[in-house]
């Protein structure tokens, strides 16, 4: 995985001509071309990706709003036939479009972007972006219980990928275009650039890489600027006064974290159980699955819970301001899990970010209200618990703990609740991890027959270091300042074939028993050993370096000194080809976990 992220030299031959082969038609441009090396050009391109993604997401949001207004009307209506007729009929349309026109839009945008990064060399068909736009717009606008963030992420990634291909940039950069666009799309959808950057790093790229961080940040920021320009800088929610006064109240938030963790597991398991079973049904049923899901969701809405339809941001806002009693909050949380599971497993395109936040918000409000009923001295408002609840589900269900914390902070603009958020999210994340081995995104990719790397697995993987393969300091260390005959006498009693030579004033070299014997026989015994050795020093390693770094040298040198970082003349041990390979053999684990 790390190689594929390298921004310097690709081991693979490039299929397209790199940007450095630009033909300059005019003198002015040829002068300017000197300024734009590929790195600089990629950064500038990131800004454009952000702009285009931002524009696309603005249109996407308008499309969802327009569809909703056209199909369901401006007012929330309960007990109206439209509530179940519209999502059912829209489900039929969406299914037909997905099966016949946009077959690549099935599944999670996050995973498709990851697949583009790690498998398809950054390739995301532009048709996928268009398909996501149209089908998600219809599905979400008609009331399917899905959110616009994941499609926005994929629309951004699709635009970036198409632009990269159009510009014929190098494969290295093309591979990175998808996450850059994904960050832009997600940032625009959430109106939260920091969370988007963190999410893309946590879930798409899988590790911190300085080479791409700048581009991701630039694209995210520029897309948010565009969205705010057109749609205003109003946050997703009107944040009420949130308070955290006594440290003992953290227990209440820890309880919320535990409940949220259990709910996350239930949510993830229900999707994980139902999705492959519905996919395994005969193909003709796929025409009706989104329609049936829409019908059932509409029925729930018809029976008195229209809040579960669509992304549900308005209802979250109302929950944040204490508009629902705890029973209603708990019911909405359960119904949203059911509705989102139905929508997602039916193959209706759309994301799970907003539903996750919805479930967390309702659960947080319900748990908070119950806790405050039994412990009236708790000072946290319903709004505080709702906000913390959002982060809890994000951490437990999407398994993005860092993003979950920053998302709550960025959405609320209030750092006073950072400690409750961290505590609750940690409990939720740990509960979710202990009860559900595979994170939801990994589970979905595995169900689709792909194995993609994840940061969570990387974190768990123990990194082998040089010290793990290190042999003890050899008994015989030669000195470059001593004469050859003196050194030859010292090695007489040794059984080793190669000897490290300590150079003056610093550095290491190596000499074999045969070489030393030959020098002695050639009559060079009165020369210092250092004067006869080749001028290139032996490379040395530090004990804490990854063992991978030793691989570059073990074939060239029989012994490699491992030295102290503070004093390079102090030998900590040595590594050899055998010692390194033996260590890798003893640590062998199957690919894919």
């Amino acid at each position, binding site marked *: 995985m790390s190689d594929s992220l390298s921004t310097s030299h690709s081991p693979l031959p490039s299929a397209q001509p790199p940007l450095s082969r630009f033909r300059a038609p005019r003198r002015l441009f040829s002068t300017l071309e000197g300024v734009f090396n590929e790195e600089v050009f990629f950064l500038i391109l990131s800004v454009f990706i952000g702009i285009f993604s931002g524009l696309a997401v603005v249109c996407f949001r308008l499309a969802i709003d327009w569809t909703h207004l056209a199909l369901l009307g401006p007012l929330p209506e309960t007990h109206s036939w439209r509530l179940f007729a519209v999502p059912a009929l829209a489900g039929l349309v969406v299914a037909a479009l997905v099966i016949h026109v946009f077959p690549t839009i099935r599944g999670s945008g996050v995973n498709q972007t990851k697949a583009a990064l790690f498998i398809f060399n950054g390739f995301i068909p532009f048709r996928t972006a268009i398909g996501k736009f149209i089908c998600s717009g219809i599905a979400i606008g008609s009331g399917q219980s899905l959110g616009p963030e994941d499609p926005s992420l994929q629309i951004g990634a699709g635009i970036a990928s198409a632009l990269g291909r159009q510009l014929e940039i190098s494969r290295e950069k093309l591979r990175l275009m998808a996450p850059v666009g994904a960050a832009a799309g997600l940032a625009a959808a959430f109106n939260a650039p920091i969370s988007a950057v963190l999410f893309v790093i946590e879930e798409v790229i899988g590790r911190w890489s300085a080479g791409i961080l700048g581009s991701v940040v630039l694209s995210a920021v520029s897309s948010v600027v565009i969205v705010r320009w057109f749609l205003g800088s*109003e946050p997703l929610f009107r944040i009420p006064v949130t308070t955290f006064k006594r440290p003992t109240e953290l227990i209440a938030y820890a309880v919320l974290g535990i409940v949220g963790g259990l709910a996350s597991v239930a949510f993830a398991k229900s999707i994980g159980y139902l999705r492959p079973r519905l996919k395994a049904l005969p193909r003709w049923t796929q025409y009706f699955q989104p329609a049936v899901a829409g019908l059932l969701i509409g029925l729930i809405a018809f029976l008195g819970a229209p809040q579960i339809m669509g992304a549900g941001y308005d209802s979250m806002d109302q929950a944040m301001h204490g508009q629902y009693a705890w029973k209603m909050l708990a019911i909405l949380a359960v119904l949203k899990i059911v509705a989102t599971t139905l929508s997602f497993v039916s193959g209706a395109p759309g994301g799970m970010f907003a539903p996750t936040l919805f479930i967390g918000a309702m659960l947080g409000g319900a748990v908070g209200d119950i806790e405050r009923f039994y412990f009236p001295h708790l000072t946290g408002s319903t709004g505080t618990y709702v906000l913390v609840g959002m982060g809890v589900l994000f951490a437990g269900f999407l398994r993005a703990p860092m993003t979950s914390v920053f998302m709550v902070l960025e959405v609320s603009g209030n750092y006073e609740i950072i400690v409750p958020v961290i505590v609750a999210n940690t409990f939720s994340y740990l509960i979710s991890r202990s009860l559900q081995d595979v994170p939801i995104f990994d589970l979905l990719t595995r169900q689709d027959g792909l194995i993609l790397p994840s940061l969570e697995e990387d974190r768990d993987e123990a990194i082998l270091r040089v010290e793990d393969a290190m042999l003890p300091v050899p008994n015989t260390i030669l000195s470059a300042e001593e004469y050859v005959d003196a050194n030859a006498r010292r090695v007489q009693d040794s059984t080793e074939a190669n000897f490290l030579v300590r150079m003056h004033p610093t550095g290491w070299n190596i000499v074999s028993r045969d070489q030393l014997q030959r020098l002695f026989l050639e009559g060079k015994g009165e020369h210092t050993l250092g004067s006869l050795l080749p001028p290139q020093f032996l490379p040395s390693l530090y004990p804490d370096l990854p063992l991978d770094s030793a691989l570059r040298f073990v074939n060239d040198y029989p012994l490699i000194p491992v030295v102290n970082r503070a004093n390079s003349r102090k030998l900590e041990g040595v590594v050899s080809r055998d010692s390194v390979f033996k260590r890798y053999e003893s640590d062998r684990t199957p690919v894919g976990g």
Partner: protein
Amino acid sequence: MSWSFPKLIPRSAPVILLVLTLAAVTGFAAVSHLVARYNANQQSRGRKLYQRGLADSAANRYDDAIDVFRAALTCDPTNSQYQLSLARALRDSNDPRRLDEAESYLIALWQRAPQDAAVNLALARVAAHRGSIEDATRYYHNAMYGVWNTDPDANRSKARIELIQFLLKKGASDKAESELIALATALPPTPAAHLQTAQLFAQAQDYAGELSQYEEVLRLDPSSSAALAGAGQAAYNSGNYTSARGYLQAAVNANKEDEASNQLLATNELILRNDPFVGHISDVERNRRIAAAFAQAETRLDECGQQKGIDFNTAATPTASPLIALQSLWTEAKPDLTRLRSPAETDLPDAIMDVVFQIEQQTAATCGQPKGVDLALLLISQKREAANR
């Protein structure tokens, strides 16, 4: 089916950037146009919904109004008027859970325009719903000194009156009186304004202030029977029975059917006829009034005792009822009546009347509010106590 773009863009970095810039500008312009059209449609839809919400609010259908205002806000999320109306509907729906949301909307509006008097007034009303005197007073003051789009003077007066009513309801009479004094100095010269202010003074039990407001009304409209009756009542309540007689008599003359003023005038007359402490009567008359009051007190005590089933002749201990102790007191004081004429006994009238006042007050507490002369004596006692304080 495979879709692919034709290779449109030249392979020179500056040209690429130029083309991308042009594409971005074009996209920006296109989306601007789209958003403008969408916003125009939404705003039009929002206005219709807003009118519907106002109608629902006016008809006290707050649940419907809230839904409609919410829908209007989804059409035009930054519209201050919609937010304000939604906040008002949330506040007025009599659901305590909705106050938080109302406040949230209003705080957001207030942060954008802290000088907006309408927003401050709405926030003050939310604080008043919560019963927070401090917050309500602050926001009402902000509303009074804030910017009103129409009729600022009248709106400021209304805001202050609302604050006074809230303070009176919360029992904060001192603060209410301060506001009343400020209100009285800036009233428009209309009888209605002074009448309303007089009633507020009455609620604050500031009868002098009340009287001055009625006098102001009478200056503007000398024939106002309401002002005459109010002034009479205010003077009566403040213990100024001579002035009260004049106002009440005029009120009765102006409106023969004003039964309340008529009754008050009768009681007022009894007070004036029975009060031994008024300055313009002779010693003989004063002694006569004291003796009459003393006799009236005995009658009242006996009646009250009978009402409560107490036989003063057979009662065992004074601790059995305060009335028995008073009866003993009255019996002890009775011989003093004969010494009233003595010029040396300067404290005796007060001492005898103290017994009378104690009896009237205790019997009022035990047997209920008296009528006629007893009521007059009770009121005289209260006036006397107030004067001593």
